[in-house]
């Protein structure tokens, strides 16, 4: 079965600190995605990747960086965290030319104080 895992599951950070959220997938999917979920907005795309070494900006990339060192791993980096980045973050993987749906991780709840 398709599997996407995220770590940490919960994180409390201070304003101005650096935060790294990690995602691992065992689906061998080329595409990976980072979304954030906020009440009233559904999920919005931050960054995505077509494969190892590739990162692309999504709809709301400001304040975030991404890293895709391998097929399996995709990280989201907040260099200078701000309270407005308090949210729930979801990683997903997908193969648009295969099954076409995306598989989601369990989410990371980030609080920036």
């Amino acid at each position, binding site marked *: 079965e398709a599997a*996407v895992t995220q770590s940490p599951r919960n994180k409390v950070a201070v304003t101005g600190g650096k935060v790294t959220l990690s995602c691992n997938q065992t689906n061998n999917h080329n*595409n990976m*995605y980072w*979304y954030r979920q906020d009440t*009233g*907005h*559904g*999920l*919005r*795309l931050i960054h*995505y990747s077509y494969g190892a070494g590739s990162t*692309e900006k*999504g709809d709301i990339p400001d304040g975030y960086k991404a890293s895709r060192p391998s097929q399996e791993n995709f990280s989201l980096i907040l260099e200078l965290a701000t309270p407005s980045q308090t949210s729930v973050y*979801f990683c*997903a993987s*997908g193969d*648009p030319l295969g099954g*076409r*749906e*995306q*598989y*989601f*991780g*369990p*989410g990371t709840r980030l609080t920036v104080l």
Partner: protein
Amino acid sequence: AQSVTQPDARVTVSEGASLQLRCKYSYFGTPYLFWYVQYPRQGLQLLLKYYPGDPVVQGVNGFEAEFSKSNSSFHLRKASVHWSDWAVYFCAVRLSSGSWQLIFGSGTQLTVMP
């Protein structure tokens, strides 16, 4: 621009009653549509998906959805709701090029009353 609208932020039904959750999309071309469910403190799970073909698609746990091109809709239905259906439901359309990302609606919180 592509978008998805779920007009009902909250829906409350009694256990055993029928259910319809509404979804309207705006998309140029043939859409690929999805319903995901999010149980409390969990990630999103695929409920069902529509690829061009039969307009009525069956999903897990007795859910089904009907695609209407004329109404730009993809409503979710269930004949008899169970207490375990208490969750947030998201409708999404997938872009067919570029990022292949999902464009999500804002979600509908379903509450099931005993």
